[in-house]
């Protein structure tokens, strides 16, 4: 019990002293997950709009695949990226394994189906009368699509934030492809796993507290956006 209390005490000391190692780990975590999310948003939101608004063969199959991959185990994504980037893999020549770029790729693969599925649900959930209203007011097909996407904006933001939450908490994929190299590929979750193994609880607890705080922030943002979407401001 004492060691736990001592662990918490030292953890808070680390947080309040703005420990350089701690800050580096937090910054890298945010950079990796943030970049992955940005890539996923740039590709995933237009794709989900396309899936929602255009009819084409195998659309249903594509949506089903995306929904299935929402539950993709991180270690499987990590294994796939590892095989692609390892020396014997098809992309081995790029020498990306054990770099933050490899971690970003793995996280983007994990977040992509989540963002696409949730954004797709948000867009198909827009009342069909919005489309008709837009057309009757003289909108072109492109303007109509933009209007529908704008109407789904709160749902889309919720989807993106939910994906970010998953990425921040993820450990399996980035551990496999990043290698947990101190000062280079070591992020919050992989550090917690490593330090716990070593019995160094202070840093693990400090990072756990920060991870929880970030998770709380993400969920608060999600809740705020969902409320804003439900109840229009006067």
């Amino acid at each position, binding site marked *: 019990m004492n060691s736990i209390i001592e662990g918490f005490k030292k953890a808070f000391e680390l947080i309040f002293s703005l420990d350089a190692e701690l800050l580096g780990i937090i910054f890298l975590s945010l950079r990796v997950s943030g970049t992955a999310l940005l890539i996923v948003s740039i590709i995933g939101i237009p794709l989900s709009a396309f899936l929602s608004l255009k009819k084409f063969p195998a659309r249903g199959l594509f949506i089903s695949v995306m929904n299935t991959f929402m539950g993709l185990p991180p270690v499987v994504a990590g294994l796939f990226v590892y095989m692609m980037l390892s020396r014997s893999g098809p992309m081995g020549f790029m020498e990306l394994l054990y770099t933050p770029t490899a971690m970003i790729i793995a996280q983007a693969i994990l977040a992509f189906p989540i963002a696409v599925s949730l954004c797709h649900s948000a867009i198909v959930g827009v009342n069909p009368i919005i489309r*008709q209203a837009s057309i009757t007011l003289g909108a072109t097909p492109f303007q109509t699509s933009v209007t529908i996407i704008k109407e789904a904006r709160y749902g889309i933001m919720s989807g993106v934030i939910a994906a970010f939450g998953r990425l921040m908490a993820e450990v399996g994929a980035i551990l496999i492809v990043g290698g947990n190299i101190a000062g280079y590929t070591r992020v919050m979750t992989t550090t917690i796993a490593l330090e716990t193994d070593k019995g160094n609880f202070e840093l693990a607890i400090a990072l756990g507290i920060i991870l929880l705080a970030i998770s709380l922030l993400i969920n608060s943002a999600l809740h705020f956006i969902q409320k804003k979407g439900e109840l*229009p401001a006067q």
Partner: protein
Amino acid sequence: MNLRLVLSDVWKSYNGKPALNACSFSFEKNGVYVLTGHNGSGKSTLLRICTLIENPDKGEVHYFSGDDIASRDIGLMRRITLVLPGIGVFNNTVFNNAAYGLKIRGENKKEIERKVHDVLNFAGLIDKKNHNALTLSSGETQRLGLARALAVEPEILFLDEPTASIDSENTEIVENIILDMKKEGRHKIVMTTHDMPQAERLADFMLLMEKGRLGKV
């Protein structure tokens, strides 16, 4: 150029059930055309076909600009407007809802401000211009639908049951807006209603829909 609508022998059915049977009519003069008939008689179907949202199974729908047939393109779609029974307000301010049609036409900001101000005044919604449109009452929503359509100054305005789901006070306001437009004499308004006294109050030209057939009253 005066826009005219001509329907020739228009047929439409859904799942084998006929909705429109050989409907023909020319909307030539300005004024209020009121299409009456029971629920399910085909009034809304006819409006959707008139506004080119749907195509007929058979027959022709032509818009004439002067003596020429207007081509079915976005240019034509922007000369007509339909106010749907459910309106379909956007999750945005009343101002931005009313400005929508002008913005997508690329009008300049000053012109948008002026036109939206005018139509919101006309519809009695100017005090609510900064409110979210989803917070309006059903009567106010109906008036916003009208204001949004009027902002784009359509040559033919189609109204599908504009007072079906609102109280008597708002019905009177909407009717007065239509009567004011009628007095101006610059518009063609084609509206549906199953309320006969209302049809008599508003109509310059009365049409009756019965089991998919269109006839003059």
